């Protein structure tokens, strides 16, 4: 794998759970992709010249270990698949102080027009270079299969309302949230999901008072799909809800939707746990917890 990012966990990366917030994992992987793009011969200058940048169409992120304050870390990246229309890239985040994998991200990378958000075929030069860099995936970094919102469910405002999703966030895109091409950075999608998650937990009657109990929510794995990219001043809202409860984890769907058109910007299926901030470990779900989820869970079968 190739070194593509190297940094440090600062105080301003730490959230109320006492660890690096999920959005900063995403920003690290995004920056890693920028370095990898440069290695593939399609960096910032080429992207500007051609009006198209190597962009993640999907990200499957595994949060394997907490990243606490003042940890040194890096990201290594590898091209593990090459097709005419996309590359498959695996990023591995390593906690350098503990010498262990902290997270990974399996991404489908496309050549996306930076104005229209449509995808183009990959240039021959990029394919050639990607084939030179091609390597076998590190099995440790590959995500485990996770549940997904069924493909036939339309991701839009109408469906969100039919499903009874809660509105978890309503905001607009600010100038400092944009990437070099004027698109909202994926980090901020994840930041909005993270901020909105407590609304969903409270909707099902759990994690009502994390400050007092020391138990909050923590994300284990996320599958993000980037349908389009929000631009400066664009208003959006996040709708979401839980749809599956296992023995220790719950799975939610959260959709960032354009408030004007109701169309999807980014959609995510997320596996999360209840996390004890004192013991620094996940709490199992009780039967009572599961009953609360069942009572409020999204019913995809109601959508034709």
């Amino acid at each position, binding site marked *: 794998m190739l*070194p593509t990012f*190297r*940094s*440090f966990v600062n105080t301003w990366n730490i959230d109320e759970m006492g660890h690096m917030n999920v959005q900063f994992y995403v920003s690290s992987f995004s920056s890693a992709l*920028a*370095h990898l793009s440069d290695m593939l011969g399609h960096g910032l200058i080429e992207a500007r010249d051609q009006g198209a940048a190597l962009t993640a169409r999907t990200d499957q992120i595994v949060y394997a270990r907490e990243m606490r304050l*003042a940890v040194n870390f890096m990201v290594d990246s590898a091209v593990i698949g090459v097709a005419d229309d996309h590359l498959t890239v695996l990023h591995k985040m390593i906690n350098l102080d503990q010498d262990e994998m902290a997270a990974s991200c399996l991404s489908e990378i496309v050549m996306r027009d930076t104005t229209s958000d449509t995808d183009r075929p990959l240039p021959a030069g990029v394919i050639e270079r990607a084939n030179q860099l091609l390597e076998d995936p590190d099995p440790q970094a590959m995500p485990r299969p996770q549940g997904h919102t069924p493909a036939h469910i339309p991701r839009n405002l109408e469906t969100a309302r039919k499903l009874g999703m809660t509105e978890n966030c309503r905001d607009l895109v600010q100038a400092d949230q944009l990437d*070099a091409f004027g698109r909202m*950075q994926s980090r901020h999608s994840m930041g909005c999901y993270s901020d909105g998650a407590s609304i969903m937990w409270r909707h099902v009657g759990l994690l009502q008072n994390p400050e007092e109990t020391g138990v909050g929510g923590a994300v284990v794995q996320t599958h993000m799909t980037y349908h389009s990219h929000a631009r400066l001043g664009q208003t959006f809202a996040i709708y979401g809800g839980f749809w599956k409860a296992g023995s220790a984890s719950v799975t939610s769907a959260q959709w960032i939707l354009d408030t004007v058109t109701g169309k999807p910007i980014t959609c995510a299926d997320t596996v999360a746990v209840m996390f004890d901030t004192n013991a620094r470990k996940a709490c199992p779900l009780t039967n009572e917890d599961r009953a609360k989820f069942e009572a409020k869970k999204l019913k995809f079968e109601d959508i034709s």
Partner: protein
Amino acid sequence: MGTPALSIDQLPITFRGTVAPSEIDEMGHMNVRYYVHKAGQAAGHLFNMIGMGPDRRKRLGLIHAPLDHHVRFLKESHLAMPINARSGIVAIAPDCLRIYTEVLHATSGAVSATFTGDYVLTHGLHGERTNFPKDVLAAAEQYKCALPDYGAPRGINLPQPTVIPNWQQAEALGLAEISRLEVGTDKIAADGAVRPEYFIGTISDGIPAFLSTIDIDRAARLNDGVGGAALEYRLFYFRRPEAGELTITRSGFIEVGNKTFLHGHWIFDQNGKPLAATAAIAVTFDLKARKSLPMPPEMRAAYEERVVPGFAV
């Protein structure tokens, strides 16, 4: 230089603010990058006072930027402290003003940090350097001051860089890579290029990794209340990158003393071209007593082993 027009106490206030929670680092004090940020804001206000404020610059298509900074960190700043800065001009040339700024604890008046930097005007980001208008130079005379002893170079006396960073040389010297980043839009100034504090920020973030390769119990030491603090920085800015550009920092020890160590950094862009060069003096810091500690002999020996012969800034 003629007679200073103003004593240090007479310098105008060019910044007022408060240390925010988001500016506090793992050492429990305001991180170095926020001092540089505040000094930059102070310079903006001083420019306005001498008739070269944002309205006129915009009208003329000019931007102002520092070529360098010499920084002395004298006193920590903690959460919620009211902070002021005052600024004057220590040297005037037709195309360059050497601005002195000191960051103060507003309630006690104690000087927390000092900055000296050469500021120039250019036609846009990529345009030629230009002279200051005559009326601006005349106004600048009214803010002339002498550089106080506590703001003068102490451990790093580098009027100019002694070498321009070179990627091949960094490889040959075996300089450590301490950061590999992408410039985000949140780091960009109004003129479209990265704000100067980005450079010191990348070094601040990279130093723990740099020291971890030697001082392997760094995390444990932090838990025991032993950290580090910067005393002095010399920063030379060659080019400020724009959003989406990539930066890589290569670093090494230059000199190790009894209590302090001098480290150097070369910052490159995605093409291996130099963006900045920096030298800094730091100490081991007792996070409980809030004062510097003598360097343990084993640490000093380990650092000395890593001094890179031939490396300079």
